[in-house]
């Protein structure tokens, strides 16, 4: 643990960093994000850097960190100095208020559209020709259909997938929870691999050639077509799904300390601009700007969407479904 050594090393590092920062106009932001936003922010960051340079003359460098949404939230709680977080679900951002008051309680109202500049939903990827003719959620519970999806307990995206299935089951069974639970149990019984993250599941489905259906974020699904070939896979959009709102927030406590509040806020606000919304659409997220959304509407299939508030909000959902002995645990316990 060598305190002296740590201090010296850190002092040395700090000097190096400080030397690079002598011109106060060089700003560094840390954006702590979840897995499937890599391509999005890779394209957005230079756009924002240019915008900021034109506007203020300052040079802003944005460092990216990507991992599972829950892991990232915990890292920020434990001291990862993120100026902004762009995570997979509201629950993971809210915890920054609940546990350490790093953000204000009303964080989700500070930016338009529930602080979600882009949305997505849960869809299916099947192999070319759709050999099992998977069309909707109820096709997934048929015996012999092999499903690949991440584990809802370790992946934020997987929680949206799970809730989409749950919402579908409630709707199909006139809000009969017991029947919905039965449906979910059958669905996860068909899951042959539960990876820990969204990207892991994609790799299992594509590279390992496991499973008939991959349940994924819509943006991830279309990315599969682009990266691995539209001649090998098809995206199937179910009739009903959930509006996944990955929220963004300035970590005010840390940004204040870094003196980056202004640029961090602008970084997130600019996500709502026409230029940024274009990038969002190109990366297969659903833009929230009505005009750009209309422009990219043709690349998505229409479907009916519910949202998290109709299911009772994240805190209630988390407790009911994903806590220890919650419904997700029960469906595995019941089968054995």
């Amino acid at each position: 643990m060598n305190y002296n050594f740590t201090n010296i090393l850190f002092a040395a590092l700090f000097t190096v960093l400080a030397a690079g920062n002598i011109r106060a106009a060089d700003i560094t932001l840390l954006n702590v994000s979840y897995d499937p936003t890599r391509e999005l922010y890779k394209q957005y960051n230079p756009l924002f850097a240019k915008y900021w340079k034109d506007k203020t003359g300052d040079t802003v460098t944005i460092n990216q960190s990507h991992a599972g949404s829950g892991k990232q939230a915990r890292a920020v709680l434990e001291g990862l100095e993120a100026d902004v977080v762009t995570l997979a679900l509201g629950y993971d951002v809210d915890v920054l208020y609940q546990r350490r008051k790093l953000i204000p309680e009303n964080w989700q109202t500070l930016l338009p559209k529930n602080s979600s500049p882009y949305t997505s939903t849960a869809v299916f990827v099947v192999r070319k020709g759709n050999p099992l003719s998977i069309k909707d959620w109820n096709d997934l519970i048929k015996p012999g259909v092999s499903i690949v999806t991440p584990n809802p307990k370790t992946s934020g995206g997987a929680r949206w997938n799970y809730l989409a299935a749950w919402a579908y089951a409630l709707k199909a069974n006139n809000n009969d929870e017991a029947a919905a639970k039965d449906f979910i149990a059958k669905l996860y019984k068909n899951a042959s691999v539960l990876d820990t993250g969204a990207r892991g599941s994609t790799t299992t489905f594509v590279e390992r050639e496991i499973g008939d259906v991959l349940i994924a974020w819509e943006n991830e699904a279309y990315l599969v077509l682009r990266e691995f070939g539209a001649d090998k896979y098809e995206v199937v959009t179910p009739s009903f799904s959930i509006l996944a709102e990955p929220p963004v927030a300035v970590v005010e406590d840390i940004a204040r300390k870094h003196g980056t509040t202004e640029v961090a806020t602008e970084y997130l606000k600019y996500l709502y601009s026409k230029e940024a919304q274009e990038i969002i659409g190109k990366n297969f997220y659903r833009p929230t700007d009505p005009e750009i959304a209309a422009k990219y509407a043709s690349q998505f299939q229409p479907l009916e969407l519910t949202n998290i508030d109709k299911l009772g909000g994240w805190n209630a959902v988390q407790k009911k479904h994903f806590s220890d002995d919650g419904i997700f645990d029960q469906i595995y316990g019941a089968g054995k």
Partner: protein
Amino acid sequence: MNAIAPPLINIKNIEKPYRQQALQDPDWVRWSLIAIAVGFIFLFICLPLGLVIFQAFSKGIAAYWSALSQPDTLSALKLTLLTALITVPLNTVFGVSAAWAITRFDFKGKSILTTLIDLPFSVSPVISGLIFVLLFGAQGWFGGLLLEHDIKVIFAVPGIILATLFVTFPFVARQLIPLMQEMGNQEEEAALSLGAGGWKTFWAVTLPNIKWALLYGVLLCNARAMGEFGAVSVVSGHIRGVTNTLPLHVEVSYNDYDIIGAFAGASILAALAIVTLILKTALEWKQANR
């Protein structure tokens, strides 16, 4: 060992061919054991290694080279080397002192100490990272103190070094303890009785005897320090170009669907390990032949 009773027997009384037979394995045993060993190593080591190299070069040398020369890869490599440079010497000094204390003296609690030294081997990498978060994380024991003085340990280089120190802790000691136990301390006692000081005895008598085991422990410690993934992943924060070590960079690239980049990074780690080990084998061989 009951079979080797002390009474001396005239060896010549026993037929020579028979003795030979009892000392050597028959050819079929020899060759089948070699086949099993080679097959096993081929299956579990050569095949995975081959796949790493195959994937790394699957788009040609140019793609391999450009993957390696990306700034993020280079900064990850630098961080990995820095980590090894700090952790290996520290753990080496510890390994030598611990081995000296344990093998040259008798004291109470010796086997507990030996067991504690092995402990990091058996701690899950997930936990090895977690414990440093519990200590230095913002909500950890020293979290408040560190925040007050704006010292970053977790999600910065010091945290990565600490986690690596923990994980590679036993390697040098583990190599030295059995050897020094086996050696006994007659030679050192002789040197001491001839008036040599403690340090001189160590440098002139002990070190030459343990140098190969020591080198070996250092190499293993180094290999693991550079290759550690799980524990470092917990304390790194995954900031590209800043706190990503090479193993973490491999994972990041893989998740970016940059297969070439991922396996190019992995091939560097494998190559570093294998080259050092071949070098060590060659040195040993040269020494033995002198």
